[in-house]
């Protein structure tokens, strides 16, 4: 067995957390934006009574229901991950970030879960106005939830408002300082905008896919147009926010930024690398191709400023996987630039009156459909792998955070998560793709139901009032006929 070593419980616990959190975040990255999009669509419908808004709303509501359910169940898992594998971290840090998670449940999860039922099932029961309120509450719930969880995450990156006790536990001293810790405002805005852009990419991609088949479809035109406005406006905003976030990280977590830049030596007028291969053991980035002075410019807003490289810091405070941080950062930025390109091209085409005609551009939009998911995941990998080797930056090492569970148990549960998530969320995603491929039609009839013809005589109301319904189809499609 020489040369072969089994992964430790620590490695396995890290793999497990990375696996379940990456899977989980794909869903909120989509539903945060989608909930707001649905609220806007329903609001437009209420204001204008134009059927195209309700039809588009119902099309995306069906998708929202499936994606939200996957987000909920993968999120329940997350609330137990801190304790199962990271119990020492929980014991030490729970007094500070535990209440944030408690507030997240009380202010957001109950709100979302409670009104999701009304949103999916309730239009006929509560009427359009109250139903719109439910949609808005779900949308607000997603933003509140993001607030608390990012406060907790940001506190781990830039801790503030606490003291460390003699036995190494973190006790709160100022909730305002802990909550609004130095990196929180940047991380919160950057994440919300990332979620909106992720949704815009999906909605735009699906709209473009259907425009390629029928460029006259008014619902496809509406979703495509709205998504392209989002990309055109929020794409550049996101790059600006990312820059502010980067400056903040450079101030508080310079080792992370040095890893992102692949910079080992301290330089004046530091270059920004387009490509390279950071070799941590040799302490050099090979095959480096960079633009002079650019890193100094965006990290300090002065092209000639000195930027510290990794070697300015003790070796045991460097991120543990520097190439991962380096490439994840480049993936995020590259996709961000492509999103801006997509958005600005749409402005040009719109100005020329060719937005719905350019097939090449629509193919580009289809290809960019998953871009948000990849960029968001890459962004999280950058910031989380860049936080290593700490869980609480500079204060609590990851190696000192792991619980006492034996390696075989962690390995078994990791394997179980991989198998179950792949099976369940794999088929969930395949089904979501199937929903995307359905043409958004008028009176969107929803998916096939068990009973094509509703049992006669149970209620006569639909025939009388013009309310359309399908037997046990739970989607919004049967909630209210917009064309009585």
């Amino acid at each position, binding site marked *: 067995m020489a040369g072969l070593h089994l992964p430790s419980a620590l490695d396995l616990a890290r793999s497990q957390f990375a696996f379940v959190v990456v899977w989980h975040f794909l869903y909120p990255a989509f539903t945060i934006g989608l909930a707001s999009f649905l609220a806007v669509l329903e609001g437009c419908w209420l204001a204008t009574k134009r059927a195209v808004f309700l039809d588009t709303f119902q099309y995306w509501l069906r998708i929202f229901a*499936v994606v939200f359910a996957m987000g909920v169940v993968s999120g329940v898992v997350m609330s137990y991950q801190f304790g199962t594998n990271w119990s020492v971290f929980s014991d030490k840090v729970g007094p500070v970030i535990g209440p944030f998670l*408690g507030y997240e449940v009380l*202010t957001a*999860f*109950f709100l979302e879960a409670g009104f999701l039922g009304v949103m999916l099932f309730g239009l006929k029961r509560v009427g359009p106005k109250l139903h719109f309120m439910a949609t808005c509450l779900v949308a607000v719930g997603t933003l509140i939830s993001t607030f608390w969880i990012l406060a907790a995450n940001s506190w781990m990156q830039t801790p503030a408002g606490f003291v460390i006790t003699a036995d190494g536990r973190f006790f709160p001293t100022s909730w305002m300082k802990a909550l609004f810790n130095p990196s929180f405002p940047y991380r919160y805005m950057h994440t919300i905008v990332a979620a909106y852009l992720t949704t815009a990419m999906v909605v735009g991609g699906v709209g473009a896919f259907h425009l390629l088949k029928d460029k006259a479809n008014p619902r496809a035109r509406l979703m495509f147009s709205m998504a392209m406005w989002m990309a055109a406006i929020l794409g550049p905003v996101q790059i600006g926010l990312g820059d502010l976030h980067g400056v903040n990280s450079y101030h508080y977590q310079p080792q992370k930024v040095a890893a992102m830049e692949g910079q080992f030596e301290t330089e004046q007028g530091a270059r920004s690398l387009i490509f390279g291969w950071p070799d941590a053991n040799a302490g050099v980035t090979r095959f480096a191709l960079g633009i002079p002075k650019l890193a100094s410019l965006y990290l300090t807003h002065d092209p000639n400023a000195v930027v510290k490289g990794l070697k300015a810091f003790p070796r045991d405070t460097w991120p543990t996987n520097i190439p991962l941080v380096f490439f994840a950062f480049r993936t995020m930025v590259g996709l961000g630039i492509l999103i801006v390109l997509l958005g600005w091209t749409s402005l040009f085409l719109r100005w020329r009156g060719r937005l719905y005609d350019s097939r090449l551009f629509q193919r580009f939009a289809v290809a960019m459909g998953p871009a948000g998911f990849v960029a968001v995941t890459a962004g999280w990998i950058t910031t989380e792998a860049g936080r290593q080797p700490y869980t609480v930056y500079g204060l609590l090492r990851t190696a000192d955070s792991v619980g006492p569970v*034996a390696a075989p148990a962690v390995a078994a549960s990791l394997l179980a998560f991989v198998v179950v998530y792949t099976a369940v969320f794999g088929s969930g995603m395949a089904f979501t793709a199937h929903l995307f491929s359905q043409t958004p039609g008028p009176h969107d009839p929803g998916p096939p139901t068990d009973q094509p013809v509703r049992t006669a005589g149970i209620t006569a109301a639909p025939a009388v009032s013009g309310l359309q319904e399908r037997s046990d189809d739970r989607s919004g499609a049967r909630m209210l006929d917009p064309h009585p």
Partner: protein
Amino acid sequence: MTPYLPLIWALLIAVAVFAYVVLDGFDLGVGILFPAVRGHDEHNVMVNAVAPVWDGNETWLVLGGGGLFAVFPLAYAILLPALYMPLTIMLLALTFRGVAFEMRFRARHDREQRRWDRSFVGGSYVATFCQGVALGAFVQGVKVSGRAYGGGWWDWLTPFSLMTGVGLVCGYGLLGACWLIWKTEGELQRRVRHLAGGLAWATLAFIGAVSLAMIVLSPAFRARWLTLPTALEVAVVPIMLLGLTVLFFSALRRGREIAPFLCALGFFLLTYVGLGLSVWPMMVPPSITIQAAAAPPASQAFLLWGASVLIPVVLIYTGYVYWLFRGKVKIGVGYH
């Protein structure tokens, strides 16, 4: 105020866990009863009877976990590694089940729907059984060393915890059956009414067996339940349980629709109180007390301010959502 904070929070966490047990209990119970009821329409009605509320019900589980992390981090840090296997399997089962909820209605053909139905049923059984096992493992006691769990990863597995696992499957089945008596009518209602009777006997038998096992196996429990004067005080619990049993069966016989569910809630409440009296004042039996497990007062107070406003608000709108979806679920109609 400060010395009472841990007690207030222990009570609130206990209430959250109880809310979870009975709320998700009845919707997991619907999954447990699935194989005992035949018919496509009937299955759709059963799922529709819980579809608008299951998500909110499951949120109480997150409150239990997140709340424990916030206000009793030491208990969270010891219990979760101790219950590693049953909790992980439970979460995976809930994953299967939660996705099946949405997917079975959207299945493109029968074969696909049957697959999601199997996932719904399997998820319900496994999640419930694991919760019961976790309960048994908690009650039988957890080995602690320093500020961490000190046992192995199979310590939870004992005949006692397996018994509580099976017992909870019966108990949730009973809650599900009683909920369906309330929410359905006709042939389906007759069928679940019949099932409720058998499940009630089974549940009560397990409550008896678990109580007996606790008294036989643990001197501490024996002292609390069998020696005077505490025995007289705690004897209220089994006496009330007997009275409730009589009420339940008479309500069932007389065709009442809501009373059986309320009685079933009563079974759970009394059993829960009984367990609470057995482990009191421990947060992690047999060695970590509520006071020892508590987060610093600043953390407990901070969350308590919010909770004292937000929990009533949550209860009000949760009640509103239940009220919106009141009434019988009809075959072929579903919610709208």
